[in-house]
């Protein structure tokens, strides 16, 4: 198991946003988390990536409990993520954004950078190569030297994915990657995710776009009001009565 949660719970005051959720992500699969609005999908993602501390329960990444680790420690274990509202480093260029992504596996400290030791040059070259590779992969190489905030929204999404990939993750967490994208951009994204999956990177994503989710994922977990109500292949989920009820119920409200 690459990622595993055990009875994971998160409370905000009286509200239980994530309630006793158990689920596993196997190496190499693409798994999706879906559910009606307010089901706790993003919260769950934030818990797994360490941005929010869990109220109780446990999170294992590669068999190691990370429930008391900070987000940077979890990132060092090979987990990268993107955000629902794209969080780029706006004061940096496109390429520099991706270069920050290389932080997890590079090592040179402040003295090395300040004094330009040999290790700095060597590593900087590696970082630059990696950044260029990832930019090319998502098709942004010709925009490398533009400031990140000047990109159109769809490209910002791609940049965020490239940045996450630059950290050489084993598992990639995507928070609503398709939201705000046009139909064409969404299908491009699906293609890109398939390629990422072929590279051997595990994907855990949250999204609202059913077509997109069913299209690319191997397994789907359905959350409703913080609880896991179903898990299975896309085909199984589509006919699951509890899932249908949850969605219909949510829409009826």
């Amino acid at each position: 198991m690459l990622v595993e949660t055990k009875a994971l719970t998160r409370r905000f005051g009286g509200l239980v946003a994530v309630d006793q959720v158990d689920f596993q992500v196997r190496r190499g699969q693409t798994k999706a988390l879906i559910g009606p609005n307010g089901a706790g999908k993003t919260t769950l993602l934030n818990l797994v990536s360490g941005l929010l501390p869990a109220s109780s329960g446990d999170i294992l990444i590669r068999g190691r409990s990370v429930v008391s680790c900070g987000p940077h420690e979890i990132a060092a274990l090979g987990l990268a993520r993107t955000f629902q509202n794209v969080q780029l480093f706006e004061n940096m260029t496109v390429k520099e954004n991706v270069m920050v992504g290389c932080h997890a596996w590079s090592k040179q400290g402040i003295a090395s950078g300040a004094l330009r030791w040999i290790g700095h040059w060597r590593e900087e070259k590696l970082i630059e190569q990696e950044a260029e590779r990832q930019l090319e992969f998502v098709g942004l190489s010709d925009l490398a030297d533009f400031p990140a905030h000047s990109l159109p929204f769809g490209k910002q999404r791609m940049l965020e994915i490239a940045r996450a990939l630059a950290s050489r993750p084993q598992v990639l967490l995507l928070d609503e990657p398709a939201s705000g994208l046009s139909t064409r951009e969404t299908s491009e994204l699906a293609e890109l995710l398939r390629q990422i999956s072929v590279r051997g990177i595990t994907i855990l994503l949250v999204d609202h776009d059913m077509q997109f989710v069913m299209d690319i994922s191997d397994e789907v977990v359905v959350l409703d009001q913080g609880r896991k109500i179903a898990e299975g292949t896309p085909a199984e989920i589509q006919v699951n009565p509890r899932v249908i009820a949850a969605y219909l119920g949510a829409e009826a409200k």
Partner: protein
Amino acid sequence: MDGSGSKRIRGGQAAPVRLRNAQVLNLLPFLFFLVCYAFAPRVVNEAQLTTIIYIGIYVLLAVGLNLLMGYAGQISLGHAAFFGIGAYTSGILTAKPIANEVIPGVSVGFAVLSAVALFLLLTRVSGWKLGVGIVLLVLLGWLHNLSSIAPAICAACAVVVMGVFGLVAKVGWSRACVSGAVLAILANVSKWFLRNTLERGGASPWTGLLVGIFLTAVISYLIGSQVLRLRGHYLAMATLAFGVIVEIVFRQWTAVTGGSSDGIFNIPPIQFFSCIPGFMRRFYEMAAGKTVDLRTQYYYLVWAFVFIAIVLAVNIVRSRVGRAFRAVHSSEQAAASLGVDTARYKVQVFVLSACMASVAGTLHAHNAGIGYIHPSEFGFMVSVELVVMVVLGGMASVWGSLFGAAAIQTLKDTLLDLEKTNPEFWGLKLQGLDPIVFGAVLIVVMIVLPQGLVRGFSDGLSALWRGAGRIKKQQGVG
């Protein structure tokens, strides 16, 4: 120059500007800087040279603060405190050695501070464990102050007590032991050092510089590691409070700092030329075109530090760690999710910038022909002045800081000259104009040119350039 490339123009987003990345272009300002550095004493007179020395000192401060504020996005309204710590440490050690009766207290205090910093650095604890650790270290330090107990026993006590505490609190016994041992060692070493200094009637300025940097690093680590958990307004208020407390200590701790009535005077200048090899000396003499007097020497020294600081700052900004700083500024969440230890980097940049301020402080204290420091030079207004320099030059622009510091220092001199003529305006004696002018500068710059004068002008120019290019193109097409 920093390559960060945030190109926004007020009132909407600018058309994307492709940023140059040519290495040669980045070296040009350095070359220009070096030429000016070497030949400046040929063209300026004595008074201007003094001003330029002051500008250099403030550039050091502004570059350091810009790393913290402009790049890492953490505000400090107490930066003058570190400036002062550097100045006072060096000034005290060289000109007014600590009197015999205060030596034990000072050295133990210094040892406790360092030990607490080390304890924090090694164990990274917080909450009650940190509190108990500090209390223990303070008590053990107090033990060192009792003359009836032999130093060896004190040291043994320190190591054992901290070790036991480390075991009990589960923070690693060896690490806790080390901080206990360092407490004992430092307490004795600094006692010996201070006595020695007193006997010889003062240490060398270089020692002062190093001790100042060390002390500043310790204090800024202690403060930074706690304060930088706060954000925005709270961070600003906390650093402000810290700065004011340090200034009050300078004023009130008369036994050591001379208090606010005297200050410290007769601080010897740094004899720069006796420390460098002969060929450099000849080079400087050639560049200056005359025998180099003390003031000119000092000018060369200060600006050598400025040059080093700018090179270091530019290098850091364009390195892995520098990118991490800028990432923290932009989005802490995203940075952390990519493996950036945000807390650690924030403290790192804080300590770095404090140490640069400390170096500036030492240089300020030993200023040739002046050699005098007073608490009022390190107060809140100075911290604000530093912020004005950074803001005016442009946040996240190392060369901008150079410009900002020069502009503010010149402005200060102009105001001083103006006030000497006792101007009157509608019967109002115009005195003490600095705060009004600086306040106005802050407000106007923030509203009109939030990216600072340098960035603002270069943006404006490039917009003009693009505009011209577009017109040409249209004409070509038409």
